[in-house]
């Protein structure tokens, strides 16, 4: 019998956030960064240029599409989630919530009566 792999903790979080935000509306890289900062209450501090490798990886995985669109006098690459991306978002969200529930139980005291860590 194969054992399920350990869930990723922070590995995959940027992808989850990006997919979630792009599910609300198509955006280009700068807008995604602003949306991450705004929706998280500025909880994440990262080099904004690092968003592009994340977007490109999601695009290569078939979870996003990228289209050049003319906005004003600029041409921008705008990202949208694909149906596979939306399915991936559902799965990743469920996996993340399971991790959060597990961590909460440990921090708040397990069912075996041991005191919580926090």
């Amino acid at each position, binding site marked *: 019998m194969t054992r399920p792999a350990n869930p990723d903790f922070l590995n995959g979080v940027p992808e989850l956030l990006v997919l979630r935000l792009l599910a609300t509306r198509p955006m280009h890289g700068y807008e995604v*960064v602003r949306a991450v900062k705004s929706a998280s209450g500025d909880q994440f501090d990262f080099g904004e240029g690092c968003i592009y490798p994340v977007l490109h*990886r999601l695009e290569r995985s078939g979870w996003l599409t990228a289209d050049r669109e003319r906005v004003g006098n600029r041409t921008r690459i705008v990202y949208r989630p694909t149906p596979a991306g939306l399915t991936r978002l559902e799965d990743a969200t469920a996996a993340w919530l399971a991790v959060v529930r597990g961590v909460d139980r440990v921090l708040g005291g397990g069912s075996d009566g041991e005191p919580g860590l926090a």
Partner: protein
Amino acid sequence: MANPVWLDQVRDAAERLGLPPEYTERLLEELDDHAEELDDAGEPHDRLGDALTIAGEAAAGYRSGRFSGRHPLFAFVLGPIFVFMFVWSLYTAFGDIVLGTFLIVAGEPGLAWGMGTVAFLEGFLVPAVTFAAIESYHRGSGRPRSWFYGGCLVVVCLAPFLVLEFGPATSSSPPSVFVKLELRRNGTELSAQMLSFLAIGAAVAFRSRRARALPITV
């Protein structure tokens, strides 16, 4: 517009890490656009982050989507051996067709010409196609060029021990073409064949290096 020195740092790091120029160009285009947005918002460009970190993240992401990027040892040490064997197999099939054609067109006297042609072309076609194939999948791997050179070296070391031979002809068919492994070759033959492969490998590498040095417009 982003600081050109910073963009150059990203470009240089991306090239050093083995990212294809087309991908680097797109990354730079998006970073440049991001910098313009920061200008419009009156924010500093250093929000974009460290050039080496971005190039490193881009390389890691690019490699993760490709077998040759994820498993470079397999792709550039064992892979070239399989590619080389496959190319040899194709070449023997091609040789059989050439000999059959010479037999049909020129009769039995034409067979000597056919064998000469097959033996002559072998020295160019087999290494050129092998190195081009390795270069082609290296290009998509997102790995530094040293992996490509390593793969070529594997082929150069193996090449002298594989020898093209002709089987006996029958009354109705031309001699068959096959390749045999000959471990005990004399030093002159070994050196000559290694040098010939090395020269063709260097030519393919030079051509590929020029193609990868396409000017990036951003």
